[in-house]
């Protein structure tokens, strides 16, 4: 009885704390469907997510887990058709973006929320100079003259480490890493409060990856932006994120602070992810992998989406989808058989 009261008190307290902390982005029960021919692809299933000012949240998951779709639906640019946001809300500073008209939404895109795309090779328009592409976003959101916009664009180029004399160069004259710098310049040109980075380093060399991450992190801190970093690289997450959400088959299965997720209790899927990483201290012939493949999103299994691949699976897993349970303060896990902390996986 006492403990129950204590718990409600604690919850109320937390409620107050989060209100004071001010959620920059609050996604509630978001569902996104793709209809391809007669099949319904459930890309995002009832996802809830919160992001605070200046926070960096890592969104981790396999290919096809719905990470990119989630990111696109924040900006309202899920390709439609075939995609459609069917339920839920995306509140940005208390305003539900899903209820806005396209005209109203355009004021947020690029100005308040900016996105960095996965493949720098294809995310720049090949027939426009990089300078034009940076000043385009400045001119779209600010009433400035062409010359002011281009001097601002030159500043942005310098900021991301490109000589401003390359303002008039075309994308094909840049390397992949340099292009990604240009894209970062475009994304940050209007000082967005939220930066969505969709696997920004996946298409780059390992040597360049670190540079780009450092650059993004540095600029993000200088400009007090929050960041949603989508990746499947746990090393990247450990390096830059404050908190982590793990996605599997369109659901978030575990979420918490970096420390909680890396050192605390665990969803079996996350355990599998960590066990598949090479460990510098142990000498193993083969890395462990998670058996099976991610489920076909047109035929998601009943109950827990992970149960066909889970070694802890029991009857309850097959029939009932587990709740998202708060295990410790701010650390949520969606599983019937939560695994104890694995001491081997310290950050």
């Amino acid at each position, binding site marked *: 009885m006492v403990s129950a009261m204590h718990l409600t008190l604690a919850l109320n307290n937390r409620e107050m704390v989060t209100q004071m902390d001010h959620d920059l982005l609050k996604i509630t029960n978001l569902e996104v469907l793709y209809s391809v021919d007669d099949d319904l692809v459930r890309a995002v299933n009832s996802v809830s997510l919160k992001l605070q000012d200046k926070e960096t949240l890592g969104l981790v998951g396999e290919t096809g887990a719905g990470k990119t779709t989630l990111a*696109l639906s924040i*900006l309202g*640019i899920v*390709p439609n*058709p075939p995609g459609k946001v069917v339920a839920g809300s995306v509140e940005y500073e208390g305003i539900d973006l899903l209820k806005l008209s396209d*005209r109203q939404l*355009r*004021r*947020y*895109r*690029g*100005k308040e929320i*900016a*996105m960095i*795309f*996965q*493949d720098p090779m*294809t*995310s*720049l*328009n*090949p*027939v*426009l100079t990089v300078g034009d592409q940076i000043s*385009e*976003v400045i001119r*779209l*959101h600010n009433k400035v003259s062409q010359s002011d916009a281009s001097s601002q664009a030159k500043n942005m180029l310098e900021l991301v480490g490109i000589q401003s004399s390359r303002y*008039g*160069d*075309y994308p094909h*004259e840049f390397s992949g890493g340099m292009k990604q710098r240009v*894209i970062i310049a*475009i994304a940050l040109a209007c000082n967005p409060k939220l930066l969505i980075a969709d696997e920004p380093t996946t298409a780059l060399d390992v040597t360049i990856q670190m540079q780009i991450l450092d650059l993004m992190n540095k600029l993000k801190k200088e400009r007090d932006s929050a960041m949603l970093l989508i990746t499947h690289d746990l090393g990247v997450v450990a390096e830059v994120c404050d908190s982590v959400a793990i996605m599997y088959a369109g659901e978030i299965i575990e979420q918490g602070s970096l420390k909680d997720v890396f050192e605390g209790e665990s969803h079996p899927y996350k355990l599998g992810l960590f066990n598949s990483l090479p460990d510098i201290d142990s000498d193993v012939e083969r890395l462990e992998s998670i058996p099976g493949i991610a489920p076909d999103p047109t035929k998601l299994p009943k109950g827990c989406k992970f149960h066909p691949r889970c070694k802890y699976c029991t009857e309850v897993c097959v029939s009932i989808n587990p709740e998202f349970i708060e295990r410790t303060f701010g650390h949520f896990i969606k599983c019937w058989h939560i695994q104890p902390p694995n001491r081997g996986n310290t950050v």
Partner: protein
Amino acid sequence: MNSDGKKNTPLREVWKRFKRNKLALGGLIVLVFLIVVGVFAPYITPYDYAAQDYTSRLIYPNAQHWFGTDNFGRDIFSRVIFGTRYTLFIGLVCTTAAALVGCALGLFAAFFSKLDNVIMRLMDVLIGMPAMLLCISIVAALGSNMRNMMIALSVTAMPNFARVMRAQVLTVRDQEFIEAARSIGASNSRIMIKHIVPNSLAPVIVQFTLGVVNAILMSASLSFVGMGVQPPNPEWGLLISAGRAYLRSEWYMCILPGLAIVITTFALNLLGDGLRDALDPRLKQ
């Protein structure tokens, strides 16, 4: 930047690749030459193209009359030179009109999927009819003169542009930089004009040169059968038509204007081929 200090714009890249193709360069030179001839026709022609001289009828080509004279004693060389004006004017204007309307339709069809079926099935109806038959029907309905023939030629050429543009926009539309443009808050019209159209033009330009060839040949054919430019205007198709009766004895009356058509269309075809190679990035060396 290049070693010569010039910027490497996409246009310059295309020109660099185009220059390497000597045949296409030849085609371009011939075309420029024809345009110059057409523009300065009154200063080049040795005789008035309409002046009749019954003392010198049906003279074979010689030093005074390079292409000979016709049955009214008119200098055929002067008439062929003035014909350049008609031919190029008809070819360029009809194809430009067709390209503008056709590309706009193709762009809308590809960009707004709701319009796709309406627009493209309409284009299919136009393509379904043989081009010549369609032209003749339109001219027959509107009346035989040069303006109506040009309308007919434009309508006939339009669906090809709509198809080419639609196909191209469909591939460009789904590229990541369009998504990126959307993510910075660009509106639909801005995305279409600034991001999609410039990236879709390459095949349209090639289609344009081939369209001009087609329009020139069709206009000559229509004028030949009396459904286009009316005599006494010196259109090439008309010149051939007028010489038809004398083909056995005064062959030059047909052959020389015919040669002008052949040279023009050949030059345009070479130009079109060269442009296609130069604009196709897969053929980059």
